[in-house]
């Protein structure tokens, strides 16, 4: 199986070439076009109850599609948002993703939910985060371009700009500056990260888009 991410970072989409026996798992609605030799099987994401939780708390679809072929086939996948897609290779390790970021993975990867902490709710990040673990590749996306940093000490990320991070990174919420500055600066709360570990960030925030749109509506 070969997979390639094209059109980064603006309208990134995934081109996958499947061979007999390959399986590719993607969230519902991700397929844009494919060869007729590819079959789709729709399943509950992780079983009935887990699927509901993932929808309500994790922002992911309840169903997943499993793509396979008896011979060979090609498949194109996308995400609803304009933006970037990146690929992670898991080797028995774990990674946390922001809700809604998951797009597709190989069969050895498990997608679950993880408690993010009460403070994350205040930071509008959501109480839960997605947890991917196992072996294989995971594709995730965001609104904006995705860039990464290896941090070994403290780093500050504006809320809405954090996409993924390793479990070794500690995350907490703090004010952007002093109390007055935090309010007036438009930054409000920020996420303070403490390494070591790798973090993925996005160069736009979906909430920022919603705020800008609301300010300009008729």
């Amino acid at each position, binding site marked *: 199986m070969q997979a390639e991410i094209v059109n980064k970072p603006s309208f990134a989409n995934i081109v996958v070439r499947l061979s007999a026996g390959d399986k590719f798992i993607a969230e*519902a609605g991700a397929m844009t076009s494919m060869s007729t030799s590819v079959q789709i099987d729709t399943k509950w994401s992780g079983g009935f109850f887990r699927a509901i939780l993932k929808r309500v708390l994790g922002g992911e679809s309840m169903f997943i599609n499993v793509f396979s072929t008896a011979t060979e086939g090609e498949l194109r996948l996308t995400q609803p948002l*304009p933006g970037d897609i990146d690929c992670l290779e898991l080797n028995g390790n774990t990674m946390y993703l922001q809700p809604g970021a998951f797009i597709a993975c190989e069969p050895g990867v498990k997608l679950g939910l993880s408690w993010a902490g009460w403070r994350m709710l205040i930071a509008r990040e959501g109480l839960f985060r997605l947890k991917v673990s196992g072996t294989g590749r995971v594709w995730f996306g965001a609104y904006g371009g995705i860039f990464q940093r290896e941090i070994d000490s403290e780093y500050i990320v504006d809320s809405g700009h954090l996409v993924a991070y390793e479990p070794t990174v500690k995350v907490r919420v703090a004010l952007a500056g002093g109390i007055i500055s935090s309010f007036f600066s438009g930054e409000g709360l920020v996420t303070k990260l403490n390494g070591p570990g790798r973090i993925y960030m996005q160069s736009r925030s979906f909430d920022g888009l919603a705020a800008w749109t609301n300010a300009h509506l008729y």
Partner: protein
Amino acid sequence: MQYELLARPASTVAKLMLQANEAFTCEVGAMISMTPGFVVETTTRNKGGGGGLIKGLKRMFAGENFFLNHFTATHPNQSLIIGPQLSGDIVYHPLRAGALIVQGSSWLASSSGIEIDATWQGLGKALFSGERMFWVKCSGVGDIFLSSFGAIYEVEVNGDYIVDTGHIVAFEDTLQFTIRKAGKSLISSFLGGEGLVCKFQGQGKLYCQSHNPPSFGQLLGPKLRPR
């Protein structure tokens, strides 16, 4: 006429360079910037400025007031930049024979040798997310510029190929097409999010877009102020 596509794939614009007496037609609102040496005619009429026939325009622009700009260069080496309304890509298709079936909102501009028929009903009641899609048939000889939401990718169909209906930009009329469900059952097709797909058969060129507007709109909509 010469052309160049800039800033692909999300903020794409087409830069056109025309010599004296060369002409093309686009929607009013598509023009971004230009050099002074053009005559511009704005019309609502069915007949395009250069003689190309445009049928069923009212339907193409959803029955609202619509205007077309016909640009004719009066001097050599005049350039002009056009772009669509939404974020997305532009593709150039040279039409030499046959016809190109285009998704209604994807038509950006065409030269005067192209006839546009917006009454074409071939795909019938194809739906996407509950919205009726409409299609435009372009025939004749000339240049066509198409826009999209998402990046445009070309598929040379040779056999068959399946595309989610919301992701079709345009296809040559040498292709046969059928609408069918994506998965094994109708229910799984909808739950799997794919809904209806279009199966193309035969030989011909197919243009697809990597994203579709309703999926994005449905994610952003709930976060906005009610109207």
